[in-house]
């Protein structure tokens, strides 16, 4: 199978850079910008300095025009940089959405008069299809809309959606009945009942989400914005307060001049948390995009953030913790038979068995016991049937069978066996207790022994659970196995808990109980019977191979249908929050240095003593203010890569993580601008 995740498009790609540059100017429109109140305030500040600049050209200002003009330019750049970071984050999504849109060309559909093969149909454009219409899709046809297969089975190429080139089977009934608009049938024909009106299909939603058009601010984002707006308001008042205080100070000191409007505006923009406010939208969009690169579609930003909070993770055993298939690992003879004898019988009984389990028996017999047997001509395959619950081969008058203990015993008895080996029960029991499946092998009326079919735990899964534990997430394995088997596998995989013989209502109950106790529950599922539980879970990941109800109940869809993806989703969720928190801390810490640059500069004419606060020894008051403004602007594009990639996440205890990030972004955020402003001042000084 070849998997190609959506090709990562570099942000420096011209396809993204050019529209992003255009967009950063288009977003200057106040009607767009007011959605980001902090940057909107900066735009107003920019307008004010522009007007002041115009006035100073006519000599109405005491500061040199070049100063006001340069401040104005850098304030405008601050807004443009902010717009640019958002446009850049959106750009990748847009480029991807455009490629998706190509698949949604003018598709036509064969609208059936009756939902059965052979019924008459008329060809209509896909846009005219409505819910509950039934269409016929034949080889080579594009499926015109989302729907359920109600008759037939077909091989479908879903690469347009999933990037997965191997075709998948879609058939009526069961868990594989959902088809997605925009995919192609490559073998057989099916009848599809449409389940979504045009504009509401999965492809439409996906395009909308990727483009960021439908992106709504998450509650956490809004709460952070509240904090940023409040800080902005306070800094506005701080600057407004400076003006009358400086007017008074001039009178009191008998020298100097009050702080000018340009300087106040510059100080305001420097103090306002522009760094985080500028990068905030990009952080969220980029997070969704990072998930998309991992082939995960989040239907809401909220779901990703909730993933960062998950305390309990419900995992399906099969396919997640264990490989989907069991493998034969051992032959245990009973009743005095030799191991070699049993291996031979097991091999024969499995020669025509094409199931993965059957093939694993053949592999074991060949590799470990060196047996090489070709299927004899006269062999007759006895396929597994629901009545006998046995399979095997009849060859040369002998009947080789394998199956569950009770079925095989019943079979040999029916052939006249008088006694059953005494140690059979014990062996079967021992294997079952270890979490494996015992398969009893017989030849005619003789029970030969038992095949130990073991669930193979995916390699490295223990480490991943260990990581989850470190993050404070409890893992619960859900399986249809009996409690004995489940316990053994749970112990080996090192999950924290398990739910055996799980029925849909058990899963729902388990989720509800955990939520009652205050936990955030994540769950992966694919079947229709998972839908209620998925709808209840806080973070519900549906496999793309899953049924339509499952996909609708979920808020995250995994196009690769790989359940361990949840770990990645949790990581991205945490990264988004951490990036926000770290940049907020960084942004606020920056203000300390900016004060030390601007306050002595702006009050120097009134109180020369305040020059002791000029710890950076900035050249002149004007260059000091300018340097702070420039630093404040250029830090935004410098941090764009961090905002888009997210801060690195290593699972570690909360307290250690806090200290680590506080040192890096808090202390670092205090020191960095001292260095940055000093360097800029030296450069600015060389121009003056």
């Amino acid at each position, binding site marked *: 199978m070849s998997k190609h995740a959506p090709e990562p498009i570099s942000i420096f790609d011209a396809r993204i850079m050019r529209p992003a540059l255009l967009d950063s100017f288009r977003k200057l429109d106040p009607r767009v910008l007011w959605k980001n109140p902090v940057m909107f305030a900066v735009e107003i500040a920019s307008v004010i300095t522009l007007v002041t600049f115009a006035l100073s050209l006519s000599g109405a200002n005491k500061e040199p025009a070049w100063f006001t003009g340069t401040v104005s330019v850098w304030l405008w750049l601050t807004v443009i940089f902010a717009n640019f970071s958002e446009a850049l984050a959106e750009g990748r999504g847009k480029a991807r959405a455009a490629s998706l849109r190509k698949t949604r060309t003018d598709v036509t559909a064969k609208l059936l008069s009756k939902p059965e093969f052979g019924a008459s149909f008329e060809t209509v454009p896909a846009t005219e299809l409505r819910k509950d219409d039934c269409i016929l899709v034949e080889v080579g046809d594009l499926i015109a809309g989302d729907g359920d297969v109600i008759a037939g089975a077909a091989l479908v190429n879903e690469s347009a959606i999933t990037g997965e080139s191997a075709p998948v089977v879609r058939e009526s009934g069961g868990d594989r009945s959902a088809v997605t608009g925009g995919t192609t049938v490559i073998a057989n024909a099916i009848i599809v009942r449409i389940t979504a009106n045009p504009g509401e299909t999965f492809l439409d939603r996906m395009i909308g989400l990727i483009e960021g058009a439908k992106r709504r601010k998450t509650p956490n984002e809004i709460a952070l914005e509240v904090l940023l707006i409040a800080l902005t308001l306070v800094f506005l008042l701080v600057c407004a307060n400076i003006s009358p205080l400086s007017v*008074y100070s001039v009178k009191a000191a008998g020298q100097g001049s009050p702080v000018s409007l340009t300087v106040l505006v510059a100080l305001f923009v420097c103090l306002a948390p522009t760094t985080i406010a500028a990068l905030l939208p990009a952080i969220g969009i980029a997070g969704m995009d990072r998930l998309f690169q991992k082939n995960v579609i989040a239907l809401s930003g909220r779901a990703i953030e909730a993933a960062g909070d998950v*305390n309990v993770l419900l995992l399906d055993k099969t396919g997640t913790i264990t490989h989907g298939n069991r493998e034969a690992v051992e032959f245990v003879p009973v009743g005095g038979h030799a191991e070699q004898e049993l291996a031979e019988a097991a091999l024969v009984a499995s020669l025509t068995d094409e199931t993965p389990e059957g093939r694993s028996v053949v592999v074991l017999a060949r590799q470990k016991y060196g047996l090489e047997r070709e299927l004899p001509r006269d062999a007759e395959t006895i396929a597994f049937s629901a009545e006998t619950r046995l399979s095997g081969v009849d060859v040369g008058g002998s009947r080789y069978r394998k199956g569950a203990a009770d079925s095989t015993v019943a079979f040999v008895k029916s052939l006249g066996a008088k006694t059953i080996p005494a140690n059979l029960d014990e062996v079967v029991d021992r294997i079952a207790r270890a979490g494996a499946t015992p398969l009893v092998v017989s030849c005619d009326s003789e029970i030969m022994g038992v095949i130990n079919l073991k669930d193979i735990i995916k390699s490295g899964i223990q480490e991943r659970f260990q990581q989850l534990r470190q993050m404070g997430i409890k893992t619960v394995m859900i399986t249809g196995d009996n409690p004995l088997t489940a316990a053994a596998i749970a112990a080996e995989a090192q999950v924290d808990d398990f739910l055996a013989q799980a029925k849909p209502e058990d899963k729902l109950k388990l989720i509800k109980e955990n939520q009652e106790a*205050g936990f*955030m529950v994540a769950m992966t599922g694919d079947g229709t019977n998972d839908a209620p539980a998925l709808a209840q879970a806080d973070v519900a990941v549906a496999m793309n191979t899953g049924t339509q109800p499952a996909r609708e109940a979920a808020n995250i869809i995994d196009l690769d249908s790989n359940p361990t993806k949840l770990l990645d989703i949790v990581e991205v969720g945490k990264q988004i*929050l951490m990036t926000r*928190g770290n940049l907020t801390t960084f942004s606020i810490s920056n203000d300390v240095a900016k004060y030390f640059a601007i306050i002595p500069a702006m*009050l120097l004419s009134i109180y020369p*003593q305040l020059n002791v606060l000029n710890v950076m020894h900035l050249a002149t008051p004007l260059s000091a203010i300018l340097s702070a403004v420039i630093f404040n602007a250029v830090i935004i594009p410098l941090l764009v890569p961090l905002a888009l990639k997210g801060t690195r996440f290593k699972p570690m205890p909360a307290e250690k993580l806090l200290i680590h990030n506080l040192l890096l972004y808090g202390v670092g955020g205090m020191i960095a601008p001292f260095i940055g402003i000093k360097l800029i001042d030296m450069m600015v000084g060389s121009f003056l």
Partner: protein
Amino acid sequence: MNAYEWAETIVFFTVLLALVKPFGSYMARVYQGERTVLSPLLVPCESLLYRLCGVNRDEEMGWKRYAVGLILFNLLTGVVLFAMLLLQGVLPLNPQKMPAFSWSLSLNTAISFMTNTNWQNYAGESAASYFTQMCGFAVHNFTSAATGMVVAIALIRGFVRRRTSHLGNFWVDLTRSTLYILLPLSLVFAVFLVSQGVIQNFSAYKTVPLVQSVTYDKPKLDDSGNAIKDAKGNPVTESVTANEVTIPMGPVASQEAIKELGTNGGGFFNANSSHPYENPTPLSNMVEIFLILLISGSLTYTFGLMAGNPRQGWALLAVMLAILVFTMAVLYRAEATGNPLVAKLGVHGINMEGKETRFGLAGSALFAVATTGTSCGAVNTMHDSLTPLGGLMPLSLILLSEVVFGGVGTGLYTMLAFVVIAVFIAGLMIGRTPEFLGKKIEVREMWMSILAVLTAGILILVFSGIAMVVPSAVSSMANPGAHGLSEVLYAFASMSNNNGSAFAGLSGNTLFYNVTGAICMFLGRFAPILASLAMAGSLAEKKYVPPSLGTLPTDKVPFALWLTLVILIVGALTFFPALSMGPIVEQLQMVGQ
């Protein structure tokens, strides 16, 4: 510090900290309706009160009803005091025949006492009758303190309770705060203060001949009581010779204890706790400081206990204590260094101007930081006379939103608002949607905690700015220049944060300061109270999220450090520019000359 001062300070903090746990547990029992040592005596009184007032003690209130009850109660008592001041001339217990207050002074004073500020634009002994002092001011000293405490308790319940709208019963909490906590303690300590020499009588003021007559320069006052200034803005003085002195009397002890205990701070006399009849001995001085810090300090333990995690309470107390001790050290150092300008005149050593020799520098420094860190505002030292750097400490403690112990109740609920903000950012930094005590911090909590923390700062910035350009406000400054700016900044900081102490030197009894002050005190008090109650309501509705490995421990050192940083950074970022034109430049000027 000398050995005596070290001993005094260490014994003080040891006793205070030793009492936090027992007294904090006592308060927790009181508010949770459990039996206490005083129950046999007080339960009958309590029941009688409820019967008389028609209060159903088992009735639970949502945050809105709780808030409505609180606001109405405060407005009602405030209006009564306002009327009392306007009618002072005709009311009893007025041996000195004090006239009525002006309407603007009445408004300012009524709101001042209603809001636990006790900003005094009047001098107690020359303006207030015994009736006003006892039935007006002293009553408010109890009710305003109790009001602050019940808000803190309601907020604690918000954190502790799950999936409910119930925050308790305002009337019951108010009654219990007064009856079980404030009354018994003030009774005991009033008697103790009498033992130290604090007076308690209803006598007329006594006039006694001076042993030695004194000649001094007296500032000339105009008809409205303001200092007359010459063309240069310096006060005009005249030479006066005095042969006798009038000694004010009054029921001081009964008011003194609750003044400190309820972090009210309104002095019976204008000189407040530096007056020998309010604070006669070094022991009474330490006891008064102890009373100022007792309830606010112990409430942190009450909080921890009610929240099921006493460590959490200790963590908050540690943050408060760290800032208190740090500011005290700076203040002590600044004053011990003295004033270089005075040194030039040949007077070296500690800057003792405005301090009482009987308290010494340590007793003065500790009082100064305790009274400003809490919203008390009583003073035993004239803060105006501190060195600029020394004076910056009390000013900063007020500007930090009164969380260093803070006012009774107010300190805790404002601190919890800071905790919410600190938790929010820290939570993000570790990649979780933030939570505190198992409650998720969301948009509503963010709004409310910001309102609780920043209201006072906003008021200070707005009104100090206005005051600098209103000529009548500027002319109230006795010391123009950077120091005058500090005086105005201090005044609005003190009023907006409901502290009540003043950088003396500003004549506050003007229409401008009376009215703007009333606005600051009212909004600075009730906006954070409403925000805290609204936050309590929203928190109580939430479900509890049990802690896991990924949860940020908020009761350990790293978070306590972070919380301290958040408090300091919010304060510094808001006020650094203003302070740089006030105490900071003044200090630089002083050192530079």
